């Protein structure tokens, strides 16, 4: 099995300044894109350019609820709640894989392309696949995406079933994995959908959500903070443990400094 390295990342969260969209997307393209799609174009363009890659070998996305704006518009039209007709664009963009597909079209990437949608473990599912593909030598690089869109209606619905509705916000994260340590920020030692071994000191989902607000893919933001700390020499390595009282399953990500330090 090969070692897997993190080459670059870019995030947009509740704490980020709004990006200058014109730099990335023409006004004509922007008209058909939902807010989360625009954000993912920004984070993916930035992460790929920092990694010096035009077209990664694989594009792997994770999103628990996909393009919420389009899905809601279609449901409102379908149930007569909006009084509007169904729009084909809403249907096309309501499938969760529309995000990874858009990035593939923009980068002309014909390689492996998959989208995971497993509630709060969508990001880790995507990261696990990317890590495994590179470890097995099936891809040399992978763009891993985490995306969640929010809306007022969704916050209200989630509050009804026990999620906090206080600080939800769109989240877009793009991370580039590679089999080469050259210029890498850190090593991605492992990703599993299992708990860490007993007694392991971990960064938890709750501590990350305290900083960014609750969001299905909030651990992707926490992971990027830890990657930064390792790259700057502030940390030697970390274990991130993701679990939630509201759904089944958990995930463990292990990050480590490059051998010999930075």
């Amino acid at each position, binding site marked *: 099995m090969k070692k897997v390295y993190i080459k670059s990342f870019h995030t947009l969260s509740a704490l980020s300044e709004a990006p200058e969209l014109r730099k990335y997307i023409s006004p004509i393209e922007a008209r058909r894109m939902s807010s989360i799609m625009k954000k993912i174009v920004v984070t993916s363009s930035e992460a790929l350019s920092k990694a010096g890659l035009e077209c990664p070998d694989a594009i792997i996305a994770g999103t628990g609820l996909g393009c919420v704006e389009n899905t809601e518009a279609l449901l409102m039209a*379908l149930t007569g709640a909006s009084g509007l007709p169904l729009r084909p664009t809403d249907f096309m963009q309501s499938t969760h894989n529309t995000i990874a597909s858009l990035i593939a*079209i923009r980068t002309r990437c014909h390689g492996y392309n998959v*989208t995971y*949608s497993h*509630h709060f*473990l969508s990001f880790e599912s995507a990261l696990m696949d990317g890590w495994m593909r590179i470890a097995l030598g099936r891809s040399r690089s992978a763009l891993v995406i985490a995306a969640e869109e929010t809306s007022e209606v969704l916050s209200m619905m989630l509050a009804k079933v026990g999620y906090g509705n206080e600080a939800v916000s769109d989240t877009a994260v793009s991370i580039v994995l590679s089999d080469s340590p050259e210029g890498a920020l850190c090593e991605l030692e492992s990703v599993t959908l299992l708990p860490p071994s007993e007694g392991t000191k971990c960064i938890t989902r709750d501590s990350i959500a305290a900083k960014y607000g609750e969001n299905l893919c909030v651990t992707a933001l926490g992971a990027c903070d830890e990657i930064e700390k390792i790259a700057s020499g502030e940390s030697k390595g970390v274990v991130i443990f993701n679990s939630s009282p509201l759904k089944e399953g958990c995930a463990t990500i292990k990050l480590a400094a490059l051998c010999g330090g930075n």
Partner: protein
Amino acid sequence: MTEAPYKGRIVVTGAGVVSAVGVGKAQTLQSLRAGRSGLDAVRYLETNRKEFPVGEVKLSDAEMLSMLGIDPSVPVTRTILLGALALKEALEESGLEELSRIPLINGTTVGGMDRSERYYRDFISDRPDHSEYIALHDCGTTTDRIGAFAVSGKPGKMPFAYATTISTACSSAANALILGADIIRSGAAEAVVAGGAECLSSFHLNGFDTLMIVDRQQCRPFDATRAGLNLGEGAAFLVIESEESARRRGAKVLAVLSGCGNACDAFHQTATSADGEGPYLAMKQALEEAGLKPEDIDFVSAHGTGTPNNDSSESAAIRRIFGSDVPPVASFKSYTGHTTSASGSIEAVFALLQLQEDLIPVSLGFSQADPECLIPYTGGPHRALRHILSNAFGFGGNDSSLILSRV
């Protein structure tokens, strides 16, 4: 990572399927042998669009609850019920016992949409009515519940090591099998249960109709008069494992998953390129991984949805792979309707049955050749089936191919 990668063969030791042509493998085989389509008028879906023929599983939700021994007051969705029926059959056949070491990978896109569309006006109101279905809406919860209900008939804890969900539209289940194979290759698990489940919903029936690709007559894959797809529903799961693990447990090997390919057409969100670049790359990769030449393939189970665009670009891609020597090709969409996210695993189970019975079901709905398309198999002698190439292509250009081989 301490596990060593596994380099041996990946075999299938259990399979379960439900679709419009049957509940379980025995009924399915009877329909395929008889050339009997499951397409019919809408019977179970709550819709005012009764003009479309559909491939519904011929069971009401209440009947499925009873077959699974689920308390009828427990909230479920139709996708969960279909998935649990198929998963139960697959697990029983495999004889797997220690599920706590086995991952479950499901492919779905619609998830709990059938209930969400029924109760959406309650969801968005300040009334609490039907809010128990909000938590069942998403794809991941659908997978967790399929795992729990199939094993215990209860919504409680999932019995598997972990679960995850792939959502690449109509190639979701094929990609679930591809991930499963990689997990076995990585050494992280010796066996994986993978497949997909999807019920019909107005959300995607009416959604596909906005793209003007739903036919009001029975679909006619590869025919000159084809005018779109019919939607179907169903589920299928396969137990795949390392050959060593199957031998050690004394499990019966049903087939070999000998190759997989995944590529992106990177052309358009919903249309396929004219030369079928994504489909071509997916089939090429699957052949390379299996170590097979195109002439080794005895049957191509086409994605063949019956839309003008899919069938011509898939034909172009198949011709690029096979040249002038194209093996028999047919699409099951005229039997089951397009079972969307579940189609990849449903048709993988059909391939198992075909290998076992040396059977190529006749293409239904074909009468007039289209110069842009291949002519599908309509009967006559064929080579003994050793290797079947099965295609599943999705929106977003998510194209996947699997090769299943006789043991």
